């Protein structure tokens, strides 16, 4: 069995059990798990178990982990979490085994995830549009440039997630 589905279960004091089928999002920046769920709109109408581990000890300090049972999320759908968790890995689990393991990729565009910081941007009005950003990396920093007003967000992206 691949360790991605088990590593934190094997530590002293079992916290979250391995899942049989579904998706494990591992190596989320510590403290960002709830924001990851928010971006993915989980649990929403989804009825299966979603387990969240926050500040779990790991080789590189602390991390968060999210386990979603009985649902294989599409990698493309998950790429948008790279905005707040650029080192996250996505593990698709079948029969307790890791079928696929991918690192999230920074998408070229994100839509409906982040709110523009410019209060005078047309995307912050009652118009029937959702926020859209072009995403690019510069000096290892993720930048979001609003498609409409071109304002750039490069810090504290999690603070600007769209809340419904």
């Amino acid at each position, binding site marked *: 069995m691949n360790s991605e589905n088990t590593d934190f279960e094997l530590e002293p004091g079992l916290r979250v059990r391995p899942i049989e089928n579904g998706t494990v999002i591992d190596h989320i920046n510590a403290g960002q798990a709830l924001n990851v769920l928010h971006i993915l709109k989980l649990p929403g109408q989804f009825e299966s178990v979603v387990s969240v581990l926050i500040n779990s000890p790991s080789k590189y300090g602390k991390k968060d982990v999210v386990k979603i049972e009985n649902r294989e999320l599409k990698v493309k759908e998950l790429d948008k979490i790279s905005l707040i968790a650029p080192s996250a890995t996505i593990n698709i689990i079948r029969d307790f085994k890791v079928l696929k393991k991918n690192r999230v990729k920074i998408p070229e565009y994100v839509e409906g995830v982040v709110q523009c910081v410019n209060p*005078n941007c*047309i*995307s912050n009005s009652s*118009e*029937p549009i959702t926020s859209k950003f072009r995403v690019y990396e510069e000096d290892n920093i993720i930048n979001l440039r609003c*498609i409409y*007003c*071109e*304002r750039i967000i490069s810090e504290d992206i999690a603070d600007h997630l769209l809340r419904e």
Partner: protein
Amino acid sequence: MYFKDMHILSMKDFSKEMIDHILETAEKLEPIAVMKERSDMLAGKVLAVLFFEPSTRTRMSFETAMLRLGGAVLSMGSVDASSIAKGETLADTIRVVQSYADTIVLRHPKEGAARMASEFSQVPVINAGDGAGHHPTQTLLDLYTIKRESKLEGVRIALAGDLKYGRTVHSLCYALAHYGADITLVSPDGLRMPYEIIKDLEARGMKVRQTDSIDEAITEVDVLYVTRIQKERFPDPAEYLRVASSLQITPELLENAKSHLKIMHPLPRVNEIDPLVDNTSHACYFKQAFYGVPVRMALLALVMGGME
């Protein structure tokens, strides 16, 4: 070059070749703009003019441009008298108006409004200013003025005034980068051009100098572009007066300028330029306002297929 049905939203969407083509087209249309020739190039076409903010020059020069080319103008009138007052979204207004007109000219207080409008319109949208955002037709007419009254390639230009908030000035600088311009920025401490923009311009091979002395800058340049300093940027009215008077253009100041220096200003001016300068050979700002007509004629002709 194919401009038909293209939206005109931001100078960033234009290559040097595209800018040159627009300016060359404007030059061809200038005899029509001054009534030396007549044209019905856009006969049967309708231009919708949607201005959600007050404007004199931009609005009237677009209307004149369309009329000079034989087209018709459809105006929304004041916002208070339109369905916007009833709470209609801009998206709905655009969806309706695009079925009445062949091109829409839009000025709106929200940044990004023109880009959004282009998503809802089957006909070209021309951005005539979106809040503190883009105003590409102003930049194009500024470039045209420099081309006609001075020279574009390698022009030595000083930009004076509020260089921090004036995005028209930023947009002009980016456009001038295509022409290898040598730029001197003249502004008081609190109104300097943002560092990222200067860095960006230098990365594009431009020479950029900064100073707070207009006397020093004026001796070396071919063009002086003056912008308005807004009183509200200064918490202390005395400080505003001090800064505004230190950058005022007077006939005495111009004694040290090159004889071919041209002074530009997007207008309206308040007291940045002494009216005594108006009658000197340096004054170019009223001509600049006129050049808005041939440049907008060129854009209308190109996006509506009157010319290629």
